């Protein structure tokens, strides 16, 4: 090895081994929701370099553009510096600095008044929240049902459809078996969810060269760009496409019937007694267990028995062993037969759906045949013995190597829940759920479909001055679980778990401002939000949302939403609309926890959780939001946060809580290194040194399943026992996949007028039509009320990979990559409209108009336009200059998206999926009009001023110069010119 300083001929002495850093600290990235492990190199106390942690289970050493731009995020000039109180009118951005004592006293007074009168008058919604096990718990302790994070406008359709169908879901609760899959079908994933694991998986898949990757997406960018086949589907029609694939598999008999009989409810008998209250529900025996028709004995027997030969079709007469409505005319029909009837119907044939989906019938037939080939003719056998739920030993594991993934493109439509359920049905028919080569669950999933608990917030559970008798978010199984009063009116401010959105597993953050403004179902007093840009890119109908935030009651002169508390680390657009600002730290200055209690980072081979530790100290008067929340909990006297004398239970704040809080005996926020011996994982007594153990291990904990536990987790004795022991599931029973969803049928029956809890009349048709125990396809709601001739084009958004799910599109480096957004359009279609690259256009919907510059491209569905989301910014926000392209050339499509559907019987539903309440962003239809005079940018809206403590942004950044050797002339500010 030569010397460090090596003379290279006559030219230069290059130091080949400069010291990189004085210290390396591990923590968890927060530049998006991927939550990769990072190593932060520190030199002279400053952040020199952030890289991926090779040991970390999520990213295994790689790091994306956002993660690498973390330095600039930490040094953003938009960072808030101190607590603020509004002094000008709301929206003016005029604030005065106040002390933390004053800020917390104000917040405590506002919140306390509400808590001791009517706790529902606090709406507490957290946006890009990664600590929901704390925030949800805090809301429960406070006593308000009005809590959720941002899942309702992100991807609750995907999550809920999965959880109700297979007891897991894509992304956080499951992943493709990248190693073994031979056919990978991806729906509507833009550049997002997952971030690094999908990139790594696709790289592996394609490099191995043994699989085909098909991307179903109206736009050919990002992941779709490297697909072996791109299917440029029309937005909102994925459900039809999937049902046509199902039609083909059924028509050709290419279905894994054995898998269905063992692992799903396909053989369960459904009561056929139209016009009765039990029609469509499972036929249950006297013990309440579902029944099947046993062809060996000719009897109706417990469907869970392993000694039966269940009929998959037929009609069977009922008798007294199966009590229920329907009398002598009732029959019992296997769920699978109902499925045959549904999807063999010619309306789901490839020929019937071709025109609507924009996919040729032959293509659909070919893809169905390819799926079948991969599943059944490329079957995998792993020489791995395992024991099933019934205790039977199997010598091998069979794999159907077809995997699928879906995300927001499926989710953000008003038919997204049913479409996502259809995808899971397709997986079940192929026998590819949690088998080698298929979709694999990530622990703590699978859980029963659906799992507990039920959402709290019924009238008797909400009491002044008391914690609520249940968590605000949960899973309903029928109308009895809804949070509605006797008249059917919603009990939550966002109308989650009401007839508006019965299965609203993530709440409806996107309806809160509208409903609070309208006092529908009731007015609130305090709106408390964290990291949620509701006055900009996190709301549909942004312009009107801004008006609602600033609107006053003419009688009193008071704001209709009286008090708004907001916590953010940066001066986002939302700051100007709050009355009290609680400034948060950056992600490199805080403790945090990625918990198995809410949104874990497990992979299919074992559970994982993680922490953030502060790697640098804040240089401003800011506090981590979670610490503030715990502090407020003490001040408000919430029993989980202080004792009866008012002393804090966690005097050390959030890190103290992370190590010492127990949600149930032995179960806390973190699973690793529990117990007195610090050697228990999962359950164990709190360990006061737990965080130190995490730090020693790179700030994460990862468990490893035994080879026997890795597949068929829903029916694998070794896995189920382990999951029960870890506290992930209440009992180690088999988790039966719900091909036929009885909760959906219960709601359908209510829509048809059966049952004790009935929807008000105006809801009935909608409930009866959209709820169905087997997935149905209906057109996106926008199609019902927007004239397709006048607005012929579908409009979508996606986040670029370098910014997806990031709070940092103002980042000095990332904004050089995506500084303004254009309207992308299919070239032929654009030319047909007389448009050329660079033309200025108006994009018009029935609800508004924005201006843009057009860019034409080949890889776009002809009836679709799209743009990068959240690049367009409000002028003056994020401490960008007033002439920044983000606010002078870019645009925000949200202005064109209505938050309410047109009136129906005098009532306006949210622009959302009728089942889950998922915001239907992608239902939007527009027209594009050439307009040479169009003025680009954020129009005439007044520029937001910098708030106190946010200084003028640098006009030049030479961040890294400080790391040069002391004598270097390049260390000078301004370089040679200085």
């Amino acid at each position, binding site marked *: 090895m030569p010397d460090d300083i090596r003379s*290279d*001929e006559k*030219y230069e002495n*290059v130091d080949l*081994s*400069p010291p990189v850093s004085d210290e390396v600290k591990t923590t968890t990235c927060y530049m998006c929701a991927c939550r990769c492990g990072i190593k932060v190199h520190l030199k002279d106390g400053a952040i020199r*370099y952030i*890289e991926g942690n*090779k040991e970390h289970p999520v990213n295994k050493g*790689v*790091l*994306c*553009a956002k993660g*690498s731009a973390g330095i600039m995020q930490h040094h953003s000039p938009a960072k808030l510096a101190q607590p603020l109180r509004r002094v000008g009118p709301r929206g003016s951005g005029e604030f005065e600095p106040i002390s933390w004592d004053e800020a917390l006293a104000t917040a405590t007074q506002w919140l306390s008044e509400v808590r001791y009168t009517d706790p529902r008058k606090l709406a507490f919604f957290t946006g890009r929240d990664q600590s929901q096990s704390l925030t949800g718990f805090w809301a429960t302790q406070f006593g308000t049902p009005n809590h959720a994070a941002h899942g309702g406008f992100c991807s609750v359709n995907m999550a809920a459809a999965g959880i109700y169908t297979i007891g897991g879901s894509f992304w956080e609760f499951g992943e493709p078996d990248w190693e073994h899959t031979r056919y990978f079908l991806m729906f509507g994933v833009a*550049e997002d969810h997952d971030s*690094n694991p999908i*990139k*790594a998986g*696709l790289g*592996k898949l394609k490099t191995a060269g043994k699989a085909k990757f098909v991307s179903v997406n109206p736009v050919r*960018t*990002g992941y779709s*760009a*490297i697909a*072996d086949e791109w299917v440029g589907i029309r937005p909102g029609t994925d459900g039809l496409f999937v049902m046509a694939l199902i039609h083909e598999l059924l*028509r*050709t*008999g*290419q*279905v894994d019937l054995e898998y269905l*009989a063992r692992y799903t409810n396909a*053989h369960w008998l459904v009561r056929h007694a139209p016009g009765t209250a039990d029609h469509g529900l499972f036929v249950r025996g006297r013990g309440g267990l579902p029944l099947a028709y046993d062809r060996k004995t*000719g009897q109706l027997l417990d469907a869970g028995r392993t000694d039966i*030969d269940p009929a998959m*079709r*037929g*009609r069977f007469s009922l008798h007294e062993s199966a009590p229920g409505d329907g009398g002598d005319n009732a029959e019992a029909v296997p769920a*699978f037969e109902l499925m045959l009837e549904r999807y*063999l*119907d*010619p309306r789901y044939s490839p020929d019937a759906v071709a025109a609507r989906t924009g996919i040729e019938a032959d293509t659909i037939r070919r893809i169905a*045949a390819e799926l079948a080939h*991969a599943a059944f*003719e490329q079957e995998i056998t792993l020489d791995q013995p395992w024991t099933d739920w019934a205790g039977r030993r199997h010598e091998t594991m069979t794999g159907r190597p077809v995997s699928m993934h879906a995300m927001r493109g499926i989710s953000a439509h008003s038919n997204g829940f049913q479409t996502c359920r259809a995808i899971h049905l397709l997986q079940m028919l192929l026998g590819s759920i949690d088998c080698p080569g298929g979709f694999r669950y990530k622990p703590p999933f699978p859980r029963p479909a659906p799992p507990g608990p039920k959402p709290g917030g019924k009238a008797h559970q909400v009491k002044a001055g008391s914690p609520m008798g249940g968590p605000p978010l949960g899973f309903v199984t029928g109308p009895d679980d809804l949070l509605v009063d006797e008249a059917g009116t919603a009990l939550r401010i966002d109308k989650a778990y009401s007839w508006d959105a019965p299965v609203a597993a993530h709440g409806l953050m996107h309806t809160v401002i509208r409903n609070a403004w309208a006092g529908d179902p009731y007015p609130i007093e305090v709106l408390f939000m964290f990291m949620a840009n509701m006055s900009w890119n996190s709301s549909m109908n942004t312009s009107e949302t801004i008006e609602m935030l600033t609107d006053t009651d003419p009688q009193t002169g008071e704001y209709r939403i009286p008090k708004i508390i907001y916590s953010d680390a940066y001066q986002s657009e939302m700051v100007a609309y709050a009355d009290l600002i609680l400034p948060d730290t950056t992600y490199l200055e805080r403790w945090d926890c990625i918990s198995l209690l809410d949104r874990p980072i497990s992979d299919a081979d074992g559970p994982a959780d993680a922490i953030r530790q502060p790697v640098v100290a804040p240089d401003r008067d800011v506090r981590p939001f979670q610490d503030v929340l715990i502090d407020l909990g003490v001040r408000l006297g919430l029993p989980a946060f202080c004792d009866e004398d008012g002393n804090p239970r966690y005097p050390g704040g959030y890190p103290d809580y992370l190590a010492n809080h127990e949600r149930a005996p032995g179960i806390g926020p973190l699973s690793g290194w529990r117990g007195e011996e610090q050697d228990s994982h999962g359950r164990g007594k709190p360990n006061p040194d737990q965080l130190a153990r995490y730090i020693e291990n790179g700030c994460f904990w990862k468990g490893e399943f035994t080879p026997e536990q890795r597949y068929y987790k829903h029916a694998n004795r070794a896995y189920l026992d382990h999951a029960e022991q870890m506290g992930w599931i209440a009992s180690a029973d088999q988790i039966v996949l719900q091909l036929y969803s009885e909760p959906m049928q219960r709601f359908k029956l209510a829509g048809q007028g059966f049952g004790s809890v009935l929807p008000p009349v105006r809801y009935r048709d909608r409930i009866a039509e959209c709820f169905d125990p087997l997935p149905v396809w209906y057109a996106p709601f926008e199609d019902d009320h927007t004239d397709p001739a006048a607005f012929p084009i579908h409009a979508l958004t996606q986040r670029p*990979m*370098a910014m997806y799910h990031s709070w940092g599109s103002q980042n000095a480096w*990332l904004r*050089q990559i995506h500084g303004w957004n254009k309207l992308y359009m299919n070239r032929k279609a654009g030319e047909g409209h007389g448009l050329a690259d660079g033309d200025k256009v108006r994009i018009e919907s029935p609800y508004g108009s924005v201006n843009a510059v057009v860019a034409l491209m*080949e*890889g776009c569905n002809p009836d679709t336009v799209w743009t990068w989301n959240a690049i367009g910014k409000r002028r003056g926000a994020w*401490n*960008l200059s007033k002439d920044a392209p983000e606010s*002078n050339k870019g645009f925000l499509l949200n202005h064109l998206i209505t938050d309410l559907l047109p009136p129906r019987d005098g009532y306006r539903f949210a622009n959302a999926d009728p089942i889950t309440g998922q915001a239907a962003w992608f239902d939007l239809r527009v027209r594009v009009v050439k307009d040479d005079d169009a003025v680009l940018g954020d129009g005439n809206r007044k520029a937001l001023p910098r708030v106190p403590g946010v200084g003028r942004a*640098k*006009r*030049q950044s030479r961040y890294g*110069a400080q*790391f040069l050797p002391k004598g270097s002339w390049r260390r000078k500010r301004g*370089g*040679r010119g200085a």
Partner: protein
Amino acid sequence: MTGLPENAAAKKLGLVIDLDICVGCHACAVNCKEWNDGGHSAPLTDEEPYGPDPLGVWFNRIHTYEAGDGPDGRTVHFPRSCLHCEEPACVTVCPTGASYKRAADGIVLVNADTCIGCKLCSWACPYGAREYDYADGVMKKCTLCIDRIENRNLPAEDRVPACVSTCPASARHFGDLGDPQSDVSRLVAERGGYALMPEMELKPVNRYLPPRAPADAPASTATAPAAPPVTDETTARAPAGGTGSRFLDWVDRTLSR
């Protein structure tokens, strides 16, 4: 003008970039910027970073374009950085010797202390690989992470360029393209890796691996009914415990749970 090394070693360090799996995520570009901002060529100055026209120094930029028309076309993500040419015009035009090619490994570097910022090199380079730092008044460029690849302060596995280390899809490879037995040379041979614009006769060292032909999955050969079934047959009621239509006989096979 600057001469090329007279006794150059056979070693030719360079990058091999797999266009088949590059998803255009910009991870390599930003991690490169992050490393090099505080590295050998520090800083990579950003002018107006929060202003109307932010303009920074980047050693690696990603371009996205489309090849071919309609659905049969392809979206290509193309990372562009210095190719460390064997006969780099940027070196031979340099009037001060600031731009030079290392004899030991072929890496093309700029000595910031002797660069006079005349920009001749950027005119000479047909690949647009050079980046002028207005504040420092010197030309900067990809160093192949000269301060990483032999850095004894880093663990051995981290001694690769930052872009290679961070790439989520593993689309970037680093090694000695002068050694036909090296992993990167084998990869190039196996995948038909190519040089950019060889007609310029600068002999770039870096190679790009072309997109593979799309995988063409076989379709099932299972016997499917020749024509779509007759509707009323498929929806016909099977008698209790009976066999139903022949078309759906497969549903009735004996099952075990």
